[in-house]
């Protein structure tokens, strides 16, 4: 059964331009992505109108994983049904028309030379997909290691963006501080414009910047094994879309390569042909290249009802291995010694769900850390084991949680950080402060200070002080203000630890809120 559209005049007319249209779509999506990335910041308003989190909310893999991990449907993720619907119609068009990572890979192909015959491991993406889905269902969600957008956004947040800003400011700063005034009179206005439109407001600093950079860049390095190596062989989102696309109704013809030509097979960036030169729908990303280089203009696309298809590119053995690995990962993570360790110094961002749900929901996209106005949120390394890697924690000595700011809870795509309004935020406890009297100047050196009390933002201050008469270190009588914490009022924002003027580790420290509630044995 054929849809009349495929043979309609309009389709025939636009057919030669489809590749250009696809490129335009890629470009637009990439620009939107970069724009949203820059917009994921404080823009003068307490609410953030749009942020790069839409990318994750569009991601069906996030939907599938979070639904399995949380055993509930997260309404925030409804936009992913748009992509699912699109895939039912047009197959894996997402990969070549929308995906910003795919676009960047296509761009990188101008610089990285891929071999004619590329390495083909198409089953791997299904293996990865199955491992992620099964281990999520059984308690350990590791999507952040394989989701293309987690890898992309995280790499950009933790390394590309700070490095770019560093290099640009290094140039302009050295002209400004060392160069003659004539130069800086020209360079400073340029810098100003760049700061307004391109650069982030402030230089940010992140742990794991190198690792994130490496993981992202690896995707591009793999292009030396063949074009779109990541998309064809590894991307679990590609795998999921491939499975859905088997039911799609917009297909390329002919189904088999013409004997005397085979151009479309050898030139296909997705390697969408099997050993017998048959076209594999699920591998095709509808890039429309083959329309262009088909010498006889035979290749075309048409609407047709899906019929019985050959088996997916994964055999039973691979399927079983993937399934067992997915089952084993949660057990391995749970029996790791680190999971027994109390999370004493782990301060999660405001709005965070309880630890188990948080780990199940967080996709390690790095957006909360990107948007954090004081660069206070940092990625975990192995403190919480493998499953906690890249999840956010507050590091007060680097930055504190701004009292009136709720941005991180607004950009979280999966609701791992529940959305808070300012009033809720003021009451949300993320940690508790305590004094180290051996370090605090007032106690240890009999000097006046109370900078912590001054900065404590809660409306009934959580840090108060006693005025006492005491002799200082030289024996002179002094009146000192000795600070103390009222635990019931402290919300753990960490500004006291941040501004504590004591050298090295602060004399007042914030620990995670649960540290006193969770007993050492793990029973609550």
């Amino acid at each position: 059964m054929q849809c009349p559209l495929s043979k309609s005049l309009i389709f025939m007319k636009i057919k030669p331009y489809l590749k250009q249209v696809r490129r335009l779509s890629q470009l637009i999506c990439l620009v939107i992505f970069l724009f949203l990335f820059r917009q994921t910041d404080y823009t003068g308003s307490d609410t953030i109108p749009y942020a790069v989190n839409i990318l994750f909310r569009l991601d069906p893999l996030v939907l599938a994983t979070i639904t399995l991990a949380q055993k509930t449907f997260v309404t925030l993720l409804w936009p992913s049904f748009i992509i699912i619907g699109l895939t039912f119609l047009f197959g894996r068009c997402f990969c070549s028309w929308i995906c910003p990572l795919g676009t960047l890979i296509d761009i990188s192909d101008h610089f990285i030379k891929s071999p004619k015959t590329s390495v083909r491991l198409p089953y791997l993406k299904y293996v990865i997909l199955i491992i992620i889905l099964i281990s999520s269902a059984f308690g350990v969600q590791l999507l952040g290691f394989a989701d293309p957008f987690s890898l992309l956004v995280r790499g950009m947040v933790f390394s590309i963006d700070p490095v770019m800003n560093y290099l640009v400011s290094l140039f302009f700063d050295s002209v400004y501080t060392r160069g003659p005034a004539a130069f800086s009179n020209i360079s400073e206005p340029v810098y100003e414009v760049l700061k307004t439109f391109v650069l982030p407001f402030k230089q940010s600093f992140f742990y794991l910047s190198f690792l994130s950079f490496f993981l992202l860049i690896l995707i591009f390095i793999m292009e030396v094994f063949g074009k779109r190596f990541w998309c064809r062989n590894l991307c679990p989102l590609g795998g999921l879309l491939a499975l859905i696309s088997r039911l799609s109704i917009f297909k390329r013809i002919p189904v088999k390569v013409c004997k005397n030509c085979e151009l479309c097979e050898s030139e296909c960036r997705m390697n969408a042909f099997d050993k017998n030169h048959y076209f594999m729908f699920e591998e095709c990303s509808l890039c429309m290249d083959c329309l262009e280089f088909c010498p006889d203009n035979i290749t075309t696309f048409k609407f047709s009802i899906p019929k019985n298809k050959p088996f997916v590119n994964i055999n039973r053995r691979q399927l079983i291995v993937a399934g067992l690995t997915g089952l084993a990962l949660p057990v391995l993570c749970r029996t790791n010694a680190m999971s027994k360790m109390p999370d004493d110094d782990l301060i999660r961002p405001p709005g965070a769900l309880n630890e188990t749900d948080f780990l199940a929901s967080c996709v390690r996209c790095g957006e909360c850390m990107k948007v954090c106005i004081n660069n206070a949120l940092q990625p975990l390394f192995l403190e919480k084991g493998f499953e906690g890697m890249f999840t956010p924690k507050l590091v007060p000595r680097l930055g504190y949680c701004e009292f009136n700011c709720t941005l991180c809870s607004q950009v979280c795509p999966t609701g791992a950080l529940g959305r808070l309004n300012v009033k809720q935020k003021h009451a949300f406890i993320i940690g508790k402060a305590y004094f180290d009297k051996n370090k605090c100047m007032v106690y240890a050196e009999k000097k006046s200070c109370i900078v912590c009390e001054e900065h404590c933002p809660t409306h009934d201050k959580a840090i108060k002080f006693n005025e006492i008469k005491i002799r200082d270190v030289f024996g002179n009588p002094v009146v000192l203000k000795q600070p103390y914490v009222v635990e019931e009022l402290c919300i753990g924002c960490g500004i006291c630890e941040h501004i504590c003027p004591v050298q090295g580790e602060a004399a007042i420290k914030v620990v995670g809120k649960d540290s006193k509630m969770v007993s050492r044995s793990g029973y609550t």
Partner: protein
Amino acid sequence: MDRRKFLKQVSLWSAGIIITPPVFNLTPKLFGSPLIKPDILVAKGDDYSGMVRQVVQSLGGIKAFVKNGDKVVIKPNIGWDRNVEQGANTHPLIVAELAKLCLGAGASKIFIFDRTCNEERRCYNNSGIKSAMKEIRDKRLRLEYIDDRKFVPVNIKKGKALKEWSFYKDALEADCYINVPVAKHHSLSRLSIGLKNVMGVIGGWRGKIHYKLGAKLADLNMVIKPKLTIVDATRVIVRNGPQGGDLKDVKILNTIIGSVDPVAADAYATTLFGLEPHQIKSTVEAYKRGLGQMDLGKCNVRYLKA
């Protein structure tokens, strides 16, 4: 010149610049001579803009401070992410009115900035100062975020508690520096008024100077000399300063104080809190250093009627 020679010269040239940091030598001049009886102008009412105009007029008019083509710094307190009602920052109407006066007097550039305690963008927005400045729409008026590159080390030659600290270049280079503090409670120094407002133009780790704060503030004030001090006492925080937050801690006084003498301005503002000038260490220390008059009996206190 061959390449080797060129590179050698370039590296020597830049090395020379790197290892010689610029150091400003500012000898503090005797400012508040005890022989002069300073004027303290006190205006009360709810037309803040009008009160600012009145106070400045009574001090000799804005032209007495701002000459045509001057670079002016207006230094409000924008330290905290608090709104106008909460009274932790200088009232935007007062800052805006001063900016307008300076523009009218022919200032070539007006810089407004503060090194904030909370995140700077939030402070500038929430304080209402950013939107107030935007409304004026004049290219000469610049509300700027602190640029770390502009902090330069300064030798405080007559400093007693502090011998060296870094200061903001724009503040040092201003032809006219107008201090516009908000008067409020401060847990350590008891009150934060004009002399304390200098904290917003200094670099470094400011928490470090809270030991012997009064003496250090006076030392810092020997470097930054405002030509005019306008104290905002329209809404004052009487408890839980310097950032407050709770409206119960805010007292509405609807008062604006103006003086060319920074110490006298602080001294008078202190009385609004039911305290005596000698109870504020920074005032006493500044007086000792000859920065101004703290004895209100030796000042001309004039009350303006709206």
